């Protein structure tokens, strides 16, 4: 098993203690949802898995995230190499201002898979993202001409094209209409068969639908982490109950 083990994880932004002593184990091959009120630290937590916090000058990270025998925060870990194994999809779709084809091919060739059959990689990745049928005749069109939902699935196709082990998603459907959201959720359902997925969401029903495990964070602390069915049916912690039933505050 290649679970991701988080131990005594702390993150500061200057004096602001954003994550406090987080300990949990993200199971391999499952979808883990991170929920919590705005500012609770869930996006900060997500960024720890691919060292994106390194890009924030004032951020300081302590503790460990162990995966396949390596501490991801270790000095010997190359963040760029790590991000090839740990893909990320953001809240707003951010395709490159290039053709649909190049959006996939660019990352692949950067990752040294340029010798493989690129056409096949592009097709497979778009199929995995359930987008192929909609864009197979538009591969040479600018990706920015796609709808928001298609752009987001293109970003997911771009992430899976480099064959990562883990996919991080930061509110991947919050900017999309219900139909596009449904497609993203179906896609996450399919991705769990091959990838470990960690997803931040503000939508309780979405977390309940798509995830196997759910972690509730509040003011930088992990309040509760359990099977999703348990969290949404009968949580242990009153704070979790208050949050998911909308009686927070």
């Amino acid at each position: 098993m290649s679970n991701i083990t988080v131990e005594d994880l702390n993150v500061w932004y200057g004096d602001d203690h954003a994550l406090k002593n987080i300990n949990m184990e993200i199971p391999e091959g499952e979808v883990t949802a991170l929920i919590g009120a705005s500012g609770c630290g869930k996006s900060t937590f997500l960024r720890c898995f691919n060292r994106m916090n390194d890009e924030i000058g004032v951020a300081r990270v302590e503790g460990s995230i162990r995966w396949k025998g390596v501490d991801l925060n270790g000095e010997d870990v190359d963040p760029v190499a790590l991000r090839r194994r740990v893909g990320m999809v953001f809240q707003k779709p951010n395709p490159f201002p290039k053709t649909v084809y190049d959006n996939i091919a660019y990352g692949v060739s950067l990752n040294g898979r340029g010798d493989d059959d690129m056409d096949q990689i592009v097709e497979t990745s778009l199929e995995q993202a359930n987008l192929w049928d909609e864009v197979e005749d538009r591969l040479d069109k600018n990706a920015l001409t796609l709808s928001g939902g298609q752009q987001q699935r293109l970003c997911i196709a771009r992430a899976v094209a480099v064959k990562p082990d883990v996919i991080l998603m930061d509110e991947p459907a919050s900017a999309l209409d219900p139909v596009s959201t449904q497609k993203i959720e179906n896609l996450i359902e399919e991705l769990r068969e091959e990838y470990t997925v960690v997803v931040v969401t503000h939508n309780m029903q979405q977390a309940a639908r798509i995830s196997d495990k759910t972690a509730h964070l509040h003011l930088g602390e992990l309040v509760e982490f359990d099977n999703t069915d348990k969290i949404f049916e009968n949580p242990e912690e009153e704070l979790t109950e208050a949050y998911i039933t909308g009686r927070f505050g």
Partner: protein
Amino acid sequence: MARDTFDKQLGDLKAQVMEMADLAKWMFETGVQSLIDLSDDTADEVLEKRHRLAELDEQIEEDALKLVARQQPMAKDMRAIGAALKLITYINRIGRYGKDIAQITTQWDSETHYSDLVNLPRMVELVHNGLNHVLRCYHEEEDIDLEQLVEWEDEIDALRWSVFRECLTYMAQDPEHIEEYAYYMMIARYLERCGDNVCKMAEKIHYMVEGEHLAIDT
């Protein structure tokens, strides 16, 4: 509180369930009373109420489903709505057994009862006590001692078979009144089923309060 409207709607739903439960309890108790008194007038009052019982059943189901669709409940809210949806089924059945007993009253040909109604009065008392207990727990959102309830249900079951055996004996001794004894046997069966429905209600109230599914072997 952040969800005042939703809290009020949940309170209203619970009040509707209690209203339906009070009606079903009244139908049960009055149906039994009509039999004891052999009063067709009382029985007719019960029979008339079955329409109101069905109305409440439909109305509560509709309101509960609207809450699910509009409020997308989670955790204890979801359990409360889920429990309400199941409770009304059991409550409806208890009310309808009251109606069935009232119907027997209207079909009763004799002027009197036989063998002091065998053990039926004790069964009625047990169902009455059990129903009151689970409804109080529902209203107060208190857990129910399920072990105690199993003992209670066992006693009702035992009485039901005792009524059955006694009635068979009386039928042999007094064949002129076979029909009345057959009615007693039917009523014992209805009361036993009421006991089962009270147990089912208790399971759902336990789930609502504790978030744990438990089944009583009835």
